[in-house]
Each structure stands twice: as structure tokens, then as C-alpha cells.
């Protein structure tokens, strides 16, 4: 098991902060259409892109996210 993990390719941890009406719906549609994509993204839903405080991005980086995606 340990060996396996060592051999595994490193997978980045990505935070996606997304708008409920657009991207979140798009992500749902990807699901409904069963379009496969990498499983390393964690979505934080906000009601609107305008809700996203720029500091969220900074805090996500400080928390250890390897990448931050903001999508409206």
C-alpha cells in the first residue's frame, strides 16, 4: 500500500469557488452528461461570482491549496 502511494503521481488539490447559477449548474450538467474529469477539485458554492471576496483566494492558498479556480 505504502509503495503504491509512493509510486502514485502527485495530484494537486484545487479549490474551485463557483457561482451557483452558472458554473455550479455547468458542473451539474457535466455530471448529468457523465463527462469524466479529474477528481481533485473541491467546489465551494457561492450565490454569485460577485460574492467571492478576493481574500478567499489568498486564504485558500494559505490553507494549502495547490491551485484556486474562480469561475462565474
Amino acid at each position, binding site marked *: 500500500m505504502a509503495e503504491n502511494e509512493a509510486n502514485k503521481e502527485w495530484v494537486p*488539490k484545487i*479549490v474551485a*469557488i463557483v457561482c*451557483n*447559477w*452558472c458554473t*455550479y*449548474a455547468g*458542473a*451539474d*450538467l*457535466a*455530471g*448529468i*452528461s*457523465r*463527462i*469524466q*474529469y479529474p*477528481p*481533485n477539485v*473541491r*467546489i*465551494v*458554492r*457561492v*450565490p*454569485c461570482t*460577485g*460574492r*467571492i*471576496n*478576493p481574500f*478567499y483566494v489568498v*486564504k*485558500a492558498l494559505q*490553507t*494549502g*491549496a495547490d491551485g484556486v479556480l474562480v469561475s462565474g
Partner: protein
Amino acid sequence: MINDNEKIGSVMVVGSGIAGIQASLDLANSGLKVYLVEKDISIGGVMAQLDKTFPTNDCSACILSPKLVEVGRHPNVEILTRRTVNAVEGEAGRFTVRMTRAPRFIDLDKCTGCGDCAKVCPINVPSDFNEGLSERQATYRKFPQAIPSGFAIDKLGTSPCKAACPTHISVQGYVALIAAGKYKEALALVKRDNPFPIVCGRVCNHPCETACMRGKVEEPIDIMHLKRFVADLDLKAETRYLPEKKESKGKKVAVVGAGPAGLTCAYYLAAEGYDVEVFESLPVAGGWLAVGIPEYRLPKDVLRAEIGVIEELGVKIHLNTAVGKDIPFGKLQSDYDAVFIGCGTVNSSKLNIPGEEMQGVIHGVDYLKRVNLGEKVFLGDKVAVVGGGNVAMDAVRTALRTGSKDVFILYRRSRAEMPASPEEIEEALEEGVKMEFLVAPKRVVGENGKVTGVECTRMELGEPDASGRRRPVEIKGSEFIVPCDALIPAIGQEADLDFVPPDSGIAINKWKNFDVDPVTFATTTPGVFAGGDVVTGPQTVVKAVYAGKEAAVSIDRYLRGEDMAAGRAKDWTKNLADKADVSQVAKVPRVKYPHLKPEERRTNFREVGVGFTEEEAVAEARRCLACGICSECYQCVDACIAGAINHDDDFAEETIEVGAVIAAPGFEVFDAKLRGEYGYGIYQNVVTSIQFERILSASGPYFGHVQRISDGQEPRKIAFIQCVGSRDTSCGNSWCSSVCCMYATKEAIIGKEHAKGLEPTIFFMDIRAHGKDFDRFVNRAKDEYGIRYIRSMPSTIKELQQSKNLLLKYVQEDGSLVEEEFDMVVLSVGLCPPSGAAELAKALGIELEEHGFCKTSLENPVETTRPGVFVCGAFGGPKDIPETVMEASGAAARASGILATRRGTMIAEEEIPLESDLRGLGPRTGVFVCHCGINIGGVVRVPEVVEYCKTLPNVVFATDNLFTCSQDTAVKMGEVIKEQNLTRVVVASCSPRTHEGLFQENCEKAGLNRYLFEMANIRDQDSWVHMHEPDAATEKAKDLVRMAIAKAQFLKPLKPGQLTVNHAALIIGGGLAGITAALSLADQGFESYLVEKAPVLGGNYRKLYYTLEGLDTRKHLKELLEKVQASKLIHAYTDATITKIDGFIGNYKTTVTTRDGEEQFEHGVVIVATGGYELETTEYLHGQSSQVVTQRELERLIAEKDDKATKAGSITMIQCVGSRIPERPYCSRYCCSEAMKNALKLKEMDPDREVTVIYRDIRTFGLKEDYYKKARELNVRFIRYDEDRKPEVVQRGDKLSIRVFDPIMNAPVEFETDLLALSVGTVPNPENVAIGNMLKVPTNQDGFFLEAHVKLRPVDFATDGVFMCGMAHAPKLSEDAVVQANAAVSRACTILTKDYIEAEGRTAYVIKERCSACGLCEDNCPFGAIRVNVVEGCAEVNAILCKGCGVCTASCRMNAVDLNGFTNEEELEQIYNI
């Protein structure tokens, strides 16, 4: 008119496109119950198919979906899909509606929309949603966001094959499964109805193939051998297929006879859990299959294997045990709980001719039995077989194989009447069997008691007999002798019923068969059943199987004590899917079934048929036409864990009562095939505009990639041809479809955005950009996107063979002919009346106009010819979405006007329990993790996630559910909330966008504040998108749930604010729109303050005399004003100015100054109807020459019979004066119609006078096109001019001289005229900006008011409580203003009908001590919901106006504004927990 208290407070809306949806929402939101009736499976109409919408290029799905969800979840709206309205009886206020519900086959209450059914469905049909550009399954949902979100199954009826098969196997089903490579499933499907696929795959008479619709194209599907293919695969498989066996019922059944009937009955009873014993007199099992059918047709080992399966299921077969001899029948009756008799017909029928007893005469049945039981029988070289059935064929071919040289058939009719299966006859002939037709044996000829021949007589065919075959009639004197060594009569069999004692009470009929109930197969003795040949006389295997199967059902019911017959009689000839026109189906030859060659087989017993290879089987199966659409393969039934599928669903009649009806059935797209010269349906790269819309759509067949159909390549040159099926009398469609110019422009722009290299060309007659901001859009298309517009209609299209490119031939405006090659052609197809319009009109009791659209009132286009029945959308004539939405609201206003007193009487308010006291409890979180059947559980290890949740802080309870959305889970969730004292609930399942509301309701019902709920989306955004990574998906699920739990601890119980509503309205502007709004409000029972700054009401409408369609507007206005005068609810102020408007939705206070001084009143909403003005111009000598007037002045001159008009010999009109120019780049919409109106009047007065219209584009959209056509017919002269080559007007004495460049002549023309009328456009009310400032609502760049959304909220402002109508919005016709005024009232009623307005729960709030009142939030808020209170020195949120978008929150440096439900703390906690 009926009394108010007899009226019904509900409305039926027929059709659920955007019109139906909008009307429903308005009505439902103003307290009326709505039945939204749709004939399709889901709502949304054509708008759902569109990619983007003009002129803003908003995504159509994005703007429509929220409306779909709202109407889908609205407690006052009942969506009735798959309904057809049959009749509407009664009168306005109280109608009785009768309708038919077509089956959906999927129970919407149970369906979770997971789509597992579609995944297993083997039937592919062209996707109607994608306009045939892709395929979908027979089990389907139109599009992912569809509402209702449940699936449906398309069935055209029972496929003929299934109906024709005596066992009614889902033939189309297993054929489809074979085509899909699902052989095991195919076999299991067969075995549901027939346990003998190995046998019936070889020796069936296959009536299914006779019925097969493919047979009408070329040859039927080789169904029998497809069945053999899957049966043989199973035969060779390591483990044979066995049906699931139910628990033992502890009851015994005896079966007499181990033939197909008996064994079938045994099989199904054993599977049901009965102990079954079969008694067979022969030493082998199988009955006729074993001893009748020769080895070369049905090998013995294969048959044994089939029977072996039955034994494996637990059936005991006692061989060599003759009932009646070895065991008395009575003992069966006493020892067993039920008996089935399927002993067949074992005795041969006699020829009954002299000499039949001679040696060498051996009856077919006996002969075959002996051979089949292994006896060596040689009959001599020359063998005659009498008969034309399969037994005769079997006998004759067996004789060949047992060494006879010369074998032949003697048959008394002709070949066509032979009952044997055609392939057997064919095979026999191949093997050298001779056949004599129309001969009958008269006498056996022999020597020494041994046959030497048979004397026959010739026959001829007479009249048809009872069997429908022509009766053979003997030809006298035609006797002749056929020499032979043996004679095999094979003309029939009889049953041996001696084993049944006469005292058993079992009735036997005159044919010596058992008399049984045709449905239950019960004999006259209780507990004794019979079926197969013993009942019917010699028949086919498959009929015997059917009898056995049905008897098994009866026996099961009998033993359970249930009614045996209930619900079983079914007329299979009804509802057949055999009506399809197959004349256009491409021919695909039947795959040749492989046989041993005649020389390889004729002397041995090797099986003749070799069997299909997999490749052959699949190819053959693919020939199936899928007649029934759904094949009834029942894969979906197995796949649906929710148990939602019901293939027995049926049509039903329904009746509802409503107070009013709104017809919104939409339109039908023109069938482009009717314009054959464009090659649609023949040339692959010619598509319709709606197809192109799907091509552009990101969720369409090509995921938004613009490509050609023929080769999938991205096109470069693409031609749009306008007016296909519009403005075209050749196909009977004289009207303009109103929307095509705009959608073609949009599609060209979007196409270019998707494929950068695209070069679109639009071929058109007139560009009709008559809507708000449309001309700007077209200008952008030309200037920014470089889209080419050519004013010409291509005459033909030819496809180039190699490239599949298209060669267009067209004549340019100057007359020159051009040929140009394009990669792709889009036909801009028009809008036609909806299919079934005539039937609908009849059902609704309304009239249609000449083209088949709904006939509407001249005063108000939403009124039909029947009071109480209203119309909206394209059914009343082609129109675009905003107009449709306005009409929908307008129709809703008219309907609710009738029912105003009955609001709230048909809707039930749900009781919500008091919230529990949570003080001191802290976050106690309960987590519910959903399996969603296998949708989540099949990928994510749900139990592991549950265990993980239990380790997280604040979690006191965690569990998993199969379906968290099901009703029983809702109950369970409520119990858990109470038992565990939960203060937070987290559900990990699907998307909060679709299910949050449902779960919140569960919480609310359990006394938990609905905002203490949070969701984790582990399906749409996890299991569905990481289907092959269960580990990663499980980890992700844990993370997502952890994030949700982390957020949940900070959630606060929220109490949405409430605000009282003042029920009066302020209407600014007393023109036609304002007056109409006031009257409509009065209908609804609401007071209004109508403020007009002029001394009289009426506005621009005062200046009109008549409309194009012939309405007397003076009379109309007079009536309206009288009504205003009479109404107690309308307070009109003239000569009045509004000096101040304070407040917001529900609570306004307005100050008005009149001659009598200042007055103040309170109101809840504002309707802005400030109107517009006729442009003042000095162009073309206006104001200088008395012979130059405006179009409106001309109307007055005509109406008042002024000499200037009546005496003018020639009149000229110039269009677009001051419109569509850089400083005023919009079209005023009505001028072309006004010009047509006056031109027709002038011609009517004096047909000989010269009337000339100088125009840029004639924009007589919709049904107004007919008037343009009429003007041309009356010789009104039309000359087109370009913006940069305007006409010149010079005064020459008492005449005006006009000089204009005529593009058709390609030269300037000059002529004189007596009177010149200028079509000047509309300019906005200059006070709009000031009024906008008072109301904090915006105006657009032209100075008209800017609506909340140009497509779907055309009369709303972004600020709640303020609405607009009339020319305050944009230039428009008077009837548009009437519709819009009603629409504004309908929208206003959604507020005025309420006593309180509820705010959203998740609104922003201000932490005062942090606020420095900088006002950035106020600047940023799109809804005017947050303002700086200067006195208090901090911002304040108006929770009623707040939409919870959070822009203020994110813009505040001080973090002084936060957003409930998405607070900084909650959001950051999620980020910390990634």
C-alpha cells in the same frame, strides 16, 4: 355571466412553452390554482432547444431553467404532462374540461431522474430534441434540466411481432438486445414468456415474422433464428440461465404430459415456488418435440438440454408413466393441489379410404415416433406422403434420410395453401422431394396386403372454406394411380382422452378436446387445467407454450385463492404499432441463414440449420425497424431501483373544473422539405435553423462545435436563407414569421464565435429588426462580425458530388445572376400554427383565423372568440420571446380579472409546525448520505463515508439512505431530527439546485429552521464524473461532506422578513397603456392613481383614427375613458406632475402637484407608462412645405376627408425618417404598418391615384404581411433606398419633386407628387430619466426604460415593485401597448394580491460598528437593496429587495456587510476544510 361565488379559482393553461410557464407563474403567484397542461413529456417548449437568445446572446437554457424549476416546485401549479384537451364546456368563470392522459409508463412520483433506465435501453431513436441530429433511447428525458425531471417511455403501441406471437414474447425487445450485444439479457427476456427458446428458435412457425413490418420493406427479420442464436449461446455457456426461483409455497401440482404445454406450465410454476411433478407415458420427455420433430430439425441432445433446465429448476419428470394406466387420474386429483393436462394429440387421423389397413401404410405420427425413438425404419424406395403440413414435410424428409430414393408429397390443394412453413417446403424441395398438388388419395392400391400405389384424383380449388383457404373440389373422372412402396398419411392427429374417467366432470367437446376457459385454461372441474393440442387439436409448439404459461398463472392464482381471470383478457389486435409508413425505409437484405448444403444433409440426420454467427445475428437484429419504439425488453424495469416503471400504464380520461383557460400551444416549425428546391432532407449539409441552433448548443449533438453533417468538418462559408416557409404564398404561408431575421443574425454571430473562420452570408428580402435594440444587433453583426447580408432569395441549391458543398444560384438586386459555393446552408424556417391547432380550437370552442392561427380580438390580442378563453404566444400569430412573455402575463391578467374574487380558494396553505427551541444545544449535526440507488453507491463507498462522518466534530448522527428524496426517507429524517435533537442537517446526495428546497421542507416539517440545512453534492459533481475512480470519488465525497458539515456549524436560523403591502398602484402616464393598466387593475379589484401631465387622458392614442386591422380607435378610446370615469377604483389626475416618490415595494408614498395643489397618496407598486413622442423633424421640407406632413397627420387628413388627401392625385411616403440612423439607431416598429394602413385607405378612396412608398426595409411583421401583399396587389409602388442614398425632395411650384436612386433600375428616378408623408419615428419621453431617478430605475442608451431582462422580464424592472408598459419601454403598436399594460398588471398582481411580501431568507445584513458608510455596496448592488443611511452613518439592507447575491459583501473592505447563508465565516470554514 355566472355569480362570483360559483366561479372556480383555478385556470387551465394549455401548452407549456415559455408562454404557458409565464402565465402559470403569474397566476399561481397571485393566488390562483393553475393546471399546466402539456401534451409532451416535459415543459419548456422550443425555447429549451435554443442555444442563445437575441439580442443579448444570453444562454437560453440558463435563463429558462430557473423558470422551469420555479413552476415545477410551485405549490399552486399542477403540471399535467401527456394530456390532450378534448372539450371545454361551460362558461367563463366555470368551465368543465375533459382531457385524455396518455401513458408515460414511468411513475413520476417514484422516478428520481437518475437515468439508469435510459442507460440500459437498447432502442435508439432520433432525438427530437436535437432535431434528429443525434439519437436518444426509447426511455428518455428531453433534456437534462427538463421539468418534470422524471423519464418517460415512448411507445407507439405493441409491435406487430409481439402481438402476433402466441406467447407474446417482447420480440422487438430481444432483437434489440441482440443488436446491442446483450445476449444474456435477450435470452432472459425470451424465457419470461417461453421456456423453449432452443426449440422455438428452430421449429417455430413464427407468426412474428409474418407480422414483421420489415416484411413490407423487403423481408421480415429472421426472428426465429435470432432466438436460436441466443438460446445456443446459453446452451454452450458454462452455467445455463435459470430464472429466479421464489420461495417454496409448499404446494404440489401434477402435470400430465411432458410436451411443450406441460413442461412450460411446470417451468413457470416451479419458478413461482411450487413443487411440480410431470407424468409422461413415453420413455422420453418433450412430447411431440421429442418424438415428432425429426433430429435434423431439432437435435435430441439440444432438446434434452432445454428440458434439463426445467428439471434443474426442480421439476420432477416421471417417464414411462401413463396416467390412466400406471397411475389413476383420480390419484393425481387427490394427491396434488392442482392438475394440468397437456397430453397433446397422439393419435393420427385416418384417411378413411379403402386399403388404409394395408402393410406399407404408416401414419405420419407413428412413423416419426418410431424413427425418433431410434427404430430403423426403411419404407422402400418410393414413398408417398399425403398432406401439406409440417408433419408431412417431416415425414417425407425423414423417409429420404432413412434410405428411400423417390419421395413425394401428395397434397389436395396448391402450394400456396400448404400449411407447412415455407422454409421447410423450400428445404424439402432442395433435398429433391417432389410435390404433387391438387391431388387427393381415393384408394390404396396393393398386392398381397402390401401397398404398391395409391389411386388419386385431381382436384380444383373452389370457394374458400371456414379456414379461409379455398376448398378443393374433386374433378370427376380424373383418377390416376401413383405407384409407391409406402404411403404415409400425415393429415392430422387426435387426442387420446381415455385416461380421464367420465365421472371426473371435465367437459369434452365434439372435437374430442377438453373444453377450457379461453383465458384461464381451467376445465370445468376446479383445480384441473388443460392446454395445448389437447385443447386446440394439433397446433404449433408456441401455442402450446402459451397455454402452459397461462395455465401456470391461473394455477398460481387458483392456489392463492385469487380471481383467476381478473385483468388478463387482452385484445392483442388493438393498439398495434403497425401504422408507420415504411415506404421511405432503406432496403437492407435479410442476412442469409446458413444451412448445410442439400448434398451434405439429405441422407443423414445432421441438423440442417447451422445457426447465425454473432456477426450475422447482430447484423440481422439491426434490421429491426423498432416499430413500437419501446421494445418492452424490460431492461429498464430491472434497472430501476425505485420501481418507477410500469409498462402496463394506459390511457385515461380526466375531468377538471377551472374558471378560465389560457391557450399557449406555441407553434410548429415549417417543414423545410416542402421547399424542395433547397434540398432539405436530401443534401446532408442543408440544415434548418432549429437544427443549427442545436449544433451551436454546448449541450447539443456536437457539444457546440460547428460542423457539417456530411463529414463533421468545420464549415467556412455558410449561407442562411431567410423566409423559408414565410412570406411565401407558394406553400400557403403568406405571413412573416417575425423572428427569423433576428435568429439568423444571432446564429451567424454565435456560429462565428464558435468557429472563428466562419464566413456567414444571410440571404434575405427585408431585414426585419423591429424589436427593441434589434437594429443595433444587426448593425453589430455587419460591422463587428463582418456578416454578409445579400438582398436576394436563392432560386436553387445543388449539391456538388465530391465535396458535398452546395452551389447556390441567386439574382442580385441589380438583376445579375450569381452562382456561389457554400460549405453549408441553413434554412431559416418559419413559424406555423401548432400541429393539432384545429382540434385544439374545436376542443376549446374558439375560432382560428384564415392561416390557422388563433383568431384574436382587435382591441386586445390575448382575447379569443370565446369569453374566458385567452391566448398567448405564437398561437395568436408568429412572435418572439419578449412579446410572448408579455402576452402570457397579459392573458394571465385577463384570466385573473374574471376570477379576482376567487383568489386563494383553490390553494391549500401548508401548516408548518413551530420551530423547536434550540437554545443551548449548539451544533448537533445529523448527516444523511444518499446511495441514489446505484448512482452514488455504485461508485462512492457510501458506508465508509457514513463512518467517516461519525468521526467529525459536531456530528451526532450519520446514516445512509437508498433514496434520500423518497417519501419514506423524508418521514425518517423527521423522526431522526426529533429523536436526536438535531440542530443541523447535512444531506450528501445530488445537487442543491434541484433538491435543497425539498430537504429544507423536511427540516421545516420536523420543526427545524430550514436554513440550518446544508448539502454536499456527491452525485452530479462526484460519482457521476469519476465513475471509474471509486477510491478518489470516495475521498472526494468525504471531503465534500466534511466541508458541508464544517459550514453547517456556523449556520444560523433565519426568519425571512415580512412587509405589509399597500394594495394600490401608481400609474405614471395616462396614455393607452396607462388607461388599460388602470382598468385592468380595477378588474382585479385594486385601486390605482393614474397621473397624466397633459390636461386629458389618452396620449398618442388620441391622434389615431383606425388601426391597420380596422379597429375604430376613436370609439375604442371613448369606451375606455367612459370606463375610467365610471370606475370607483381609478383616481385620475390630469395636468399633474409627480414631485416626489418615496419608499419601495409594497410601501410607496408619492406626491403629486396639480392645479388644485399638492396631494399625497400611498401605494404598493408603480407602473411606468410614460409613453413616447413623435419625432419632430425638419427633413424633407417638413415645416417648410404645407404638402409635407407626417404619417400621423396624413391619417388625420384621410379620416377627416381633408381635400389635401382626398384631392391628391399622387401621394408619396418616405419611411425611416429620423429612425435607424447613427443618432437614433432603432426602428420604431409601427411606421411600416402605418404606411401600409394609409396607403390602403388612399387606394380604397381612389384606386387610380399614384401611391409610392420609399423605404429601407418593409417591416410588416407577423400577420401584417398580408396588408403589405395587398398594397402591392393594389399597385402601390415601392422603391427602396439605402441609408447613405436618401431621397431628395424639392418644391417645384405646387408640386414636390422627389429624386431617389432605385436599386432595381440601378439608376436614379425622379417624379412629382402632390403630398409627401413622412414616417417619423418615436422618441422617448424626455422625462424618463428624471422619473427613473425618482424610482431608482435605469433607462437605456436611447432613453427608453431598461427592463430587468429583455427576454423574460420585459415589463419588470430589476427593482422589485416597479413595472413598465407602452412606449416607455420602446416604440410599439397600440395593441402591443394594451398587451403590455395587462402584462404589467399581471406582474403587479403577484405583489398586490399578497398581504405580506416575504423576503428571501439568505439576505445581506450590516454589522453597523464596522461600517464607515463608504457606499461601495450601494454602488455595486444591482437591486438597489442596500443604501447608506447618512443620518445613521452606516449602510442598511432592505431585505425585501435583497436577492442575496452577496456582491455587497465581497465589495466591502470593512467586512461590515455579510450574507446570511453564505457568511464569510461559513465560506472560509469550507475553504479551511478542503
